């Protein structure tokens, strides 16, 4: 092992404690959802520890102990203050009932999937981080931060000399790896994958819980299998890349939105805000996905005439501010250091997009068409878009925004691919970016499947009031 037991305990225990306290402040406890809770706690804790690391770097402190110690005390105080707050329990939505055999089957699949995740984590721990994106910028940036103990020194010098690619990417991944270096007291070459890999585990936990609430156990089990056998998702747990962070946060945000739709109380608004902050801090595609999701939600609400309601509680406002703070922080960092990425959006190229469309669009569309049905994505995008087009049920319920959000995301992806370096981006990045939508698409498919496979309705059902006919998707 690269870490001692004590170092490993600090690496996992501090974010876990922070996460539990943050969730406690929102009124979310383990009994709210026993399956998703560890995943939510890891997400909140990872955000917390990355925030504390940022403060420590801004202060230029060599050791993170004072800031992290203070953060732990503050988090404990927050949790203690909120102890009297009633626990948010799942009032609006229970798991969809299934037979005993079905439920056992789902449990068995869950065990199998976790065995698989453990195997993949162990297998990746045999290889040092020396190649690909995980080494060339995520891990390298963490090394510079560890070396500089601040945003100045060798870190600022490396940015000025363009010592690593995509310097304008958000910092969450690198800050989590920096936390590993801090726990170890040195630069590690394998263990710094652990906090990122745990986001994959959290993704599976949260997806399993969301799928179980959206559909019958056997459908949830099959969709969970499809998730973990997706090639880019598999690669996500083997490497310390940020694509899995986007997929994870996107899923949690949509799930929190779905749960809180009927009663937008502090718990779900707070959880959705944490997920959005995580999304914005993970990768630039995270910002794109967040914007597409917000636009799609607003469009659906406008069509339904529900744009102005429901309003979140006043206590949720600081939590809602969090994603914007993260976004502003990233923009400020990039402006301060003149940080540029390898795939910059050049306005001159954008002006030329119409001309490029003629050249590259057929290539991009052919690739996307092939990717949608390719076994490496298990044909999930194809099934998703086909059902979104054909199933009437797709346009109802809390998740009705998902097809529009995914469509906007894919359109933005096409523009990004067409604007230059097309063949290289198709070969190296396109499948990974598409995989960021997979958990969201699976959740939506589960909700549609529940409606699609429900027993036929009474022929007179159309005479009943809309609310009484169907609970709607999700």
């Amino acid at each position, binding site marked *: 092992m690269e870490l001692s037991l004590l170092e490993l305990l600090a690496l996992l225990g501090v974010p876990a404690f922070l996460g539990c306290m943050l969730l406690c402040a929102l009124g979310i406890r383990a009994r709210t959802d026993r399956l998703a809770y560890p995943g939510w706690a890891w997400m909140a804790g990872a955000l917390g520890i990355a925030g504390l690391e940022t403060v420590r770097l801004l202060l230029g402190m060599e050791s993170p102990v004072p800031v992290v110690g203070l953060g732990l005390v503050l988090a404990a105080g927050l949790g203690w203050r909120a102890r009297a707050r009633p626990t948010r329990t799942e009032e609006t939505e229970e798991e969809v009932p299934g037979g005993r055999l079905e439920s056992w089957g789902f449990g068995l699949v869950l065990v199998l999937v976790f065995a*698989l995740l453990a195997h993949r984590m162990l297998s990746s721990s045999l290889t040092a*981080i020396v190649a690909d994106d995980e080494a060339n910028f995520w891990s390298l940036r963490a090394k510079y931060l560890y070396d500089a103990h601040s945003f100045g020194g*060798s870190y600022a010098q490396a940015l000025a000399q363009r010592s690593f690619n995509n310097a304008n990417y958000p910092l969450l991944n690198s800050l989590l790896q920096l936390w590993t270096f801090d726990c170890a007291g040195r*630069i590690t*070459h394998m263990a710094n994958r652990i906090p990122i890999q745990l986001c994959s585990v959290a993704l599976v936990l949260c997806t399993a819980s969301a799928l179980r609430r959206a559909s019958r156990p056997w459908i949830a089990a*099959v969709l969970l*299998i499809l998730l973990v056998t997706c090639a880019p998702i598999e690669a996500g747990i083997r490497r310390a890349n940020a694509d899995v962070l986007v997929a994870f946060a996107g899923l949690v945000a949509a799930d929190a939105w779905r749960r809180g739709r009927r009663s937008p109380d502090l718990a779900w608004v707070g959880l959705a805000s944490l997920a959005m902050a995580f999304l914005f801090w993970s990768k630039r595609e995270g910002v794109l996905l967040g914007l597409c999701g917000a636009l799609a939600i607003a469009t659906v609400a406008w069509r339904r005439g529900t744009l102005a309601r429901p309003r979140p509680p006043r206590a949720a406002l600081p939590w809602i501010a969090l994603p914007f703070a993260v976004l502003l922080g990233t923009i400020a960092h990039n402006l301060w250091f003149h940080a540029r990425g390898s795939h910059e959006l050049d306005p001159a190229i954008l002006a030329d997009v119409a001309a490029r469309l003629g050249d590259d669009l057929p290539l991009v569309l052919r690739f996307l068409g092939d990717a949608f049905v390719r076994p490496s994505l298990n044909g999930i995008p194809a099934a998703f878009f086909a059902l979104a087009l*054909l*199933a*009437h049920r797709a346009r109802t319920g809390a998740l009705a925004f998902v097809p529009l959000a995914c469509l906007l995301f894919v359109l933005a992806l096409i523009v990004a691919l067409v604007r230059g370096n097309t063949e290289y981006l198709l070969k190296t990045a396109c499948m990974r970016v598409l995989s960021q939508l997979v958990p969201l698409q699976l959740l939506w498919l589960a909700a549609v499947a529940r409606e699609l496979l429900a027993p036929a309705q009474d022929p007179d059902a159309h005479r009943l009031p809309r609310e009484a006919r169907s609970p709607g998707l999700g």
Partner: protein
Amino acid sequence: MSSFLFSTHSPSSPAESPRLGRRVLALLFLAWLTWTGVAGVGAIGRELQGVPAVWRMAGALTAEGRIARTMSTSDRIAKLPSGYLLSIVKAVNEFVPPHEDVQLLQVPDRKRIRALVPVPHLTFPRRIRADLFRKSEDVEPPPGTYLLAFGDTSQERLLANKTLLASGADWSLWH
């Protein structure tokens, strides 16, 4: 569900055609779910067959062993002798102080530069640079520079006043 899928009720009226469409969609969805689900279980089964070997290896290898294994894989991919890259990593870490730059000299080709990509990740905060002088005869390296030279260095003018620190198959580290 079976009553829904296999109802004998024929869709004779226009009002029932959406129901037929729904059944067709449901059948297609189930077929896709079954097909990909079975394939997924098969893939998981095949992957889990590797569990004993991975656990055995994980139990046996130390952190250094894992790094050596990674570099040995990189050697194999770049068609270099076994232990080549690890020996460079060890030499740089041993002889070059942190935050110093190591300049590459007489790199045979671009393939070799690509093969050396894993090295700086394991020697951080020492930096391996190939950009200061492309042709050795053009530019003098600043005094005190560490040089990682490849091939026959006996005629290399730039190494005349340097001390040999370490050497391997076709490389040598100078200061």
